[in-house]
Structures are given as C-alpha cells and as structure tokens.
C-alpha cells in the first residue's frame, strides 16, 4: 500500500530517464558516445528557466495545451499499476477512464497546434488524430482481451492477476498478441520510429514534434516532460504484461516493473536503430494490424475465466478499490 504511493513520485522523477536511455542505445548502435542518460533532465532544466515567445495568432487555447497535456498524463499515471504494484486509484472500468484521459491531452495538444495557424502544425495535428483514431480501438480491445483472460475490470487487479505462469495457462499464449499490440501502440502514441522520427530536421516529416514547433520556454519543457510521462505510462502497460513477475514482495515487484520499463526503452532504441520510418500510407496498416492482434487475442484467450468470478461481479460487490 505504501509502495503504491511511491510509484507516482518515482514516475514523476524517473520518466525523463526513458528518452535518455533510448538516445543512449541509438548512440551505441551508431557507434557514437552519445549524450548522457541524464541529458533530458538538463534539457528540461534549461527550458524551464527560459522566457517565452507567443505568436500573435494564438489564443488561450495555445497556452492551455501544455497544461492539459501534463495534467491528463499525470491523471493517467494515478490509474497505472507498475507490474504487480497497485495504482493509487483503481475501480472497475478504470481502463476506459485511462484511455479517455489520455485522449483529453491529445485533444488539447492538437487544438494548440491548430491555434498557431501554421500549415506544418496543421499537418502534424491531422496525422496525430489519424493515428490515434486507429490506435484507440487496438488499445481498448487489447485491454478487453486481458480482462477476459483474468476476469478483472480494473487495471490494477488485471495486472495483479497476471502471474509468472500466465503464459502456461490455457489461453495465456494469446496474451503475447496483446503484448505485440501494446508495443505497436507504445511506438505510435509516443511518436517513435516506425511511425514518426523525433530526430528529423524537416518540419514536413515530423508529427508530434511539428505540433509543438511554436511552443517555447517553460511551455515546451512541460510538453517534453508530459511526453516522457506518457512514455512511462504506455511502457508500463506493455512491460507489465511482458514481464509478469508477481512475487508478492512489493520491493521485488517494483524492481521488476522498473526493469520491464527500461527493457521497453531498450527495445525502442533498438527498433529506432535498425528500422527506417514507414511510408505514411503504411502506418494505417500497421495500426490495423495491432487492432487485429487485439481482436485475435480476445477470441483466443480462455473464455469465461474461473466461473466463480462471475457471480462475484454479478452480485455487484464492486468495491471502490479492488486492489488486493
């Protein structure tokens, strides 16, 4: 219980490490020394100390963009279990709240981009909503598959129910498909290769980075920070499934969760080093593939888990906290 309170500060402090690790891995593959793992912190610190310049075209919506992005990602974080570690807030159906609270951040990021009246930012915004429209069904269907396998309806109890032997249980291997879908969603939502290249130098080819071209100073710092948090959030979803260590010892679980997260960052770095960006028209197909994985998993997982679970839900003993 005390440890679940630890997750939030840990994420808030540790999230910028993830892009640091990715950059380091990419540098390794390219044969460079690369920036320090702590470089994102230094970048943030520098940005937060600056002033700002606003376009005359913009309104308060532009200024609200970074605020909402940060607040919504943090709200998603409060619902997020790290491996076997329960979240601060858990209730049946919180996975829907989780997905939609992230969508709120996206809405305002896109609105802030459109507020500048720039063609580049409009283009990025258009692509962002396009990818999101396709990744949302994949995410929710993937979570539904996990819910069906475990018989649980909240993120915390759902991830807690995934034990180390989950792959050996009937229907368990199908969860690998969900993991694949979650990894694809992780890459798409965090604007990584093969969907988007965060390091490109041409505004025309960027998606997420181009949407925030006009933000500067503390605003841009908040955006970068929110992006790192989002990486933590979606990374924990994937790693909690891929590294299902549930020892019952909170410290060990926490450690395993963190290891999983950095493994996902490592994976991202490798993907970015060995792959090129997909052609834009191919992106829909990859996201559709993720949705197809989720649907397939939903059909393949063990149907109607331990029947004893059903009357428990039926008798509607739905407690505010289903966390163990």
């Amino acid at each position, binding site marked *: 219980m005390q440890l679940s309170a630890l997750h939030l500060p840990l994420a808030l402090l540790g999230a910028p490490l993830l892009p640091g690790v990715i950059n380091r891995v990419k540098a390794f593959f390219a044969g460079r020394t690369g920036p320090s793992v702590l470089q994102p912190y230094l970048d943030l610190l520098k940005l*937060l100390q600056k*002033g700002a*310049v*606003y*376009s005359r*075209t*913009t309104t308060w919506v532009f*200024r609200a963009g*970074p*605020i909402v992005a*940060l*607040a*919504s990602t943090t709200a998603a974080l*409060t619902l997020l279990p790290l491996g076997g570690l329960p979240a601060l*807030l858990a209730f*049946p*159906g*919180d996975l*829907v709240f989780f997905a939609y*609270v992230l*969508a*709120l951040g996206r*809405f305002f990021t*896109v*609105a802030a981009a*459109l*507020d*500048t*009246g*720039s*063609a*580049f930012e*409009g283009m990025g*915004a*258009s*692509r962002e*909503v396009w990818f*999101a429209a396709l990744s*949302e*069904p994949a995410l*929710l269907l993937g979570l*539904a598959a996990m819910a*069906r396998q475990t*018989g649980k*309806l909240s993120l915390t109890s759902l991830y807690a129910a995934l034990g180390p032997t989950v792959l050996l249980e009937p229907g368990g291997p199908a969860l690998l498909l969900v993991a694949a879908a979650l990894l694809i969603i992780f890459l798409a939502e965090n604007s990584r290769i093969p969907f988007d290249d965060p390091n490109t130098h041409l505004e025309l080819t960027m998606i997420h980075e181009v949407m925030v071209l*006009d933000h500067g*100073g*503390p605003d841009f710092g*908040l955006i970068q920070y929110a992006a790192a948090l989002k990486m933590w959030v979606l990374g924990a979803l994937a790693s909690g499934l891929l590294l299902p260590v549930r020892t019952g010892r909170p410290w060990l679980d926490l450690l395993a969760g963190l290891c999983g997260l950095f493994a996902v960052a490592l994976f991202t770095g490798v993907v970015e080093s060995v792959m090129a960006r997909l052609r*834009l028209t191919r992106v829909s197909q990859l996201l559709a593939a993720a949705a197809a994985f989720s649907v397939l998993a*939903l*059909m393949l997982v063990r149907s*109607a888990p331990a029947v004893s*679970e*059903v009357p428990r*839900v*039926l008798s*509607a003993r*739905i*407690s505010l906290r289903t966390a163990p």
Partner: protein
Amino acid sequence: MGSLLLAAGLLVLGGAAALAAGRNARWASFFGAGGALLGACVGIIPAVAVLAGRPVQPLRLAWGLPIGAFSLALDPLSAFFVVPILGLCALAAVYGTEYLKPYAPRRPLGACWFFFDLLAASMLIVVVARDSVLFLIAWEVMALASYFLVTFEDEKESVRQAGWTYLVATHLGTVFLLLFFMLLAREGGSTSLSAVPVLSARLASVAFALALIGFGTKAGFIPMHVWLPEAHPAAPSHVSAVMSGVMIKTGIYGLMRALTMLGAPPVWWGWCLVGVGAVSGILGVLFALAQHDLKRLLAYHSVENIGIIALGLGVGMLGRAHGLPLVAMLGFGGALLHVLNHALFKGLLFLGAGSVLHGAGTRDMEHLGGLLKRMPWTGTCFLIGAAAICGLPPLNGFVSEFLIYLAAFCAVVQGQAFGGAIVIAALALIGGLALACFTKAFGVVFLGEPRGEKAAQAHECGVAMRLSMAVLAAGCLFVGLFGPLVLSWSDGPVGQLAGLPPADFPDSWQTALMPLCSVSAGAAVLLGLLLLAAALRAWLQRGREIGRGLTWGCGYAAPSARMQYTASSFAQPITGLFSFFLRTRERAVDPEGYFPGPASYATETPDVFREGLYRPAFEGALKTALRLRWLQHGRIQLYVLYIALTLLVLLVWRLGCS
C-alpha cells in the same frame, strides 16, 4: 398531471398569441418565447417529482373521436424525456429571441414562433400519451410543425428541397408506426398503451421490426437517416438544436416504450440494435468528417450519437436476454444518460454554430477561422461542447459512454465476448474519429487566422444567446462531475427497461453505479491536476520575458491565412482511408505548364445512401407512376365515369359479400 396539461396549454397559447402578433417581431418573440419559458417551468415540476420518486396520477379526459382515448400518464421513463425536452426548448426559445432578429424585416416571425411552441407541446404530448391514436396525432403534429420550421427560409431552393426530403422521410416512418400500433391494438383489443398485450414470439418480433424502422426513421438510424443532414442545417439554428437535441430522441423514446411493452427480448433484437448502432455510429462520424458545412457536420454527429445510444440499448438487451442483469442495467443506463447528454452538448453545439452563422454570416468552415478572438464566449462554449461530444472526461459525454463501455466489458468477462467486443471496438473507433472531427471543427472555425473577409469581421452574439449557451455548457460540466447523482434519479426507467423486479432493483442499481462514483472522483482529481499544472506554469513564467511574434514558418516572414491547413486537408488522411464508404467526389484543376494559370480543388461528399439507395428507388417509383399517366387526361366526363365504375364495383363487392 394537470400541470403537464397546463404546460402544453401554455405552449399552444403562447404560440397562438405569437401568431396573432404576426409581423410585429417584438411581440411575436415575447409571446412565443414567453409561452415556451412558462410552459417549460410549469411542466418540468411534475417530471422532476416523478423522477424523485413521487408518482403522479394518470389523466383521462373526454375525447371526441370514435377511437382512442385522451389518456396521459407520467411514469419515470416519460419523465426522463420530459426534462430535456422542456429544458432545451426553453433555452432555445431564449436564444431564438435574439437569433431571429435579423430575419424580422424580411418575414413575419409569428408563424415561426407558433410552430416552435407547437413543436414543444407536441413533443411533450408524445412522451406522455398512453393511447396510440393520441400518440400518432401528436407525432404527426410534431412532424408538421418541424417541417414548417425547417422551411423557414423557403426562398432558398436548397431549403425547400430539404423540407421535402424531411416530409417524405417522416411520413414513410409513420407508415411503419401505423402498422405497429395497429398490430398492438389488434392483439391487445384496445388502443391503450398502458395495457400490455401478450404477443406470440413471432408477432412480437414483427412488432419490434416495425418499431425499429418507424422510430428509427425519426431517430436517424442508418440507412433511414437521410433526412437528418438535409433538415438540420436548413432549419434556424435554435430549431436545429431542438430537433437534434430532443426531437430525434422521441424516436428513441418510442423504441424504449415499445421494448417495455413487447416483453422479454430474444437475443437477435439485441444483435440487431448492436449492429444498427455500430453502423450508424461509425458511418455517422465518418460522414461528419468529410463535411465542410458546420451544421451539416453536426447533423451527421447526431446520427453518430444515436448510434451510441443504440449500442447501449443493444448491449443492454443482450444482457437481459442472456440473464446478465448487471450488463443490462449498465447498458440501458448508459443509453438513457446519453439521451440527456446528447441533448446538452448537441444543443450547445448547434447554438454555437448558430452564433457563428449569426456573427460571421457563413457556416462554410473553409471560410471561417480565428473566431475565438472575435467571439470568446461562443468559442469557449463550443470548445466545452466539442470536448463533451468526444467523450472526454471530466465532461458529461464520458459518463454515459463509460457506462456503455463498462456494460460491454462486463459482457466480455461474463461470457458474451463477441457482443462486448463489437461494442468496445465500435465505441473506441467512434471516439477516436469524433476526436478527429471535433478538433477539426473547433480548430478550423475558432483557431488560427480568419480564412475570409466575413470571418475577419465577425462579432460576438448578445446576452440572450450567450446565456443559453453558458447554461448548457454548465450542464455538461455538472453531469460530468455529478453523474451518479443524475443517474440515481433514473433507476425507474432503467428498471422498466431491464425488466428487473422493482423490489430489489434500487439496491443493485446503486451498486452498479459505484464505479461511476470513482469516475467522478477521477474527474475531480483531473480538475485538481489541471489547476496544479496551470499554477506551475504561471509560477515558472513569473517575471520572465514574454515576447510576441509571428508563427514559425521555417523563417518565412509573411505567412498568410491561406497557408493554413483547411478543414478538408485536416480530414483528408482519414477520409482517404475510408474512401470506400464515403465516395467523396473531387474536382481538381491542376496547375500546368511553366507559367501555371489558376488551379482549383474542391471535394464534395454526398450521402451514399441518398445517392445509392433512395434516389434510384424514388426514380423507379416516378417511372412507374409515369406509366399510369394515361389515366389522367383532364376530361371531366371520364373522371365521372371512373367514379361511377368504382361505385359499381364497390356495390357488386358489397352485394357479393352479403
């Protein structure tokens, strides 16, 4: 019950007084809007009382017709619909007093107000009538009153065309309703809607199909939706708000009422509604994405939201048919709450669109832009409505969608994975596409630089219009934060729909709402985090140098409004992906040669069902009718002969029968 009748009377009286005032715009508005306000205040009291658990006696009055009866009753289901109907009508009336002013020199406003009040009164009677004859009469008055409202600007060819489409569609729907009620009356022995006839399984299914088509036409299920994108943009905006916010919900009411009367549903009814809901929802939002006309876009979103309601109803019926009461309660509860929510945010959005039309003189999104600076009130209210319709927390759209999601997830967990998965996939896709559509609508209309002269000179609307929008926006936030409170009043209708025994129902309903309390807590946390983040940003920027400049354009120093992304270009990746369904027509003149002349590009997305289904059908009907033209030649002697022959045939038939 008396006060409901009084409310209807006040509405009709106000309308009649407005009609009498005729060309005097000020008095017509005074009587019209006054009647609507007064009627709404009087009528909403008994409805709230019923929802709070104090039943109202049914009413039966003398009736001059040989069939039917004048019988009214206000049960919780009716009361749940009366509240949004009267509430939105009152707000739209306040809005209309200002919105209609520019039209006053050109046309008498009396008739418009008369039909507006008549529409409100007839909707009220439709949801409380307990006799099929009375119901159908009120239904017809509702259709005709709204027809005259749609054709308000009848000097425009497009408006007359839209009115005609609406008139034909609504009457085609009524034919099915007539059959539906005749079937019920034949089996039940009376036209009363309170006495529930016991139908055989086959007849019940026939009745369900008739109700689905008949009420679905009014509600706007695909493919019966074709009148919606025509009629809603043509009507004055406050009328569009009422039509889209509550009038099409009378179709949903009718369907729900039919469900309570037809007994336990077989599984395929649930599948049917899930299918209709998924198709209406996804195609509705896709068509909306392809539109450039702001009000047409909103009209297609009504189709989408009706689809969401149908998904809720469908998953509720699947739950009921499979004996999963939790799924049934959550599904029906979500569908009901979405009825109220859609009235709130769609009313708000249509009023916002009307305010744009009022202030900027056009509703073509490609000529708008930058209105948030010129119309801060309208823009902010529209933003709230846009976020609410996308189902984003902490606003109301999320609460009802959450309930339907939860019903679907429960269905998945409890062994109905297939139905649940369809609902989840449809809702998620609809949610993602709606977000694309409303970032487009809000971003292109209110953000950036104005794309035309009219938009540059736009002005904010006055107090009456602002007030109506602000009340609706506050309603969106209220339901978003206090969803469980609102839903705890709706246990009555949910119990009726889910067919659960009333004795232990309220308890299980309260437990089913427990997750919703957590959603409210989550929404509060979100609001708190928003405030924290805003404070953090303000603290970081304190005392720093804040400059103003141009939007970054790769160093280009003279960006113009024409360089912005347009509504069409914003939606293009998605409409391109789904071009198979949309069949967008493109007309492009490419730049050619070394010194290219003018180039142009235009797209248009006509309704596939209108073009592919109804147009050929009606053309076929016309062709057949033309074949019979030889019967009509204008010679009076022959017409007399037709009459004589008909009489003779009837006489022979009568004699032969006896």
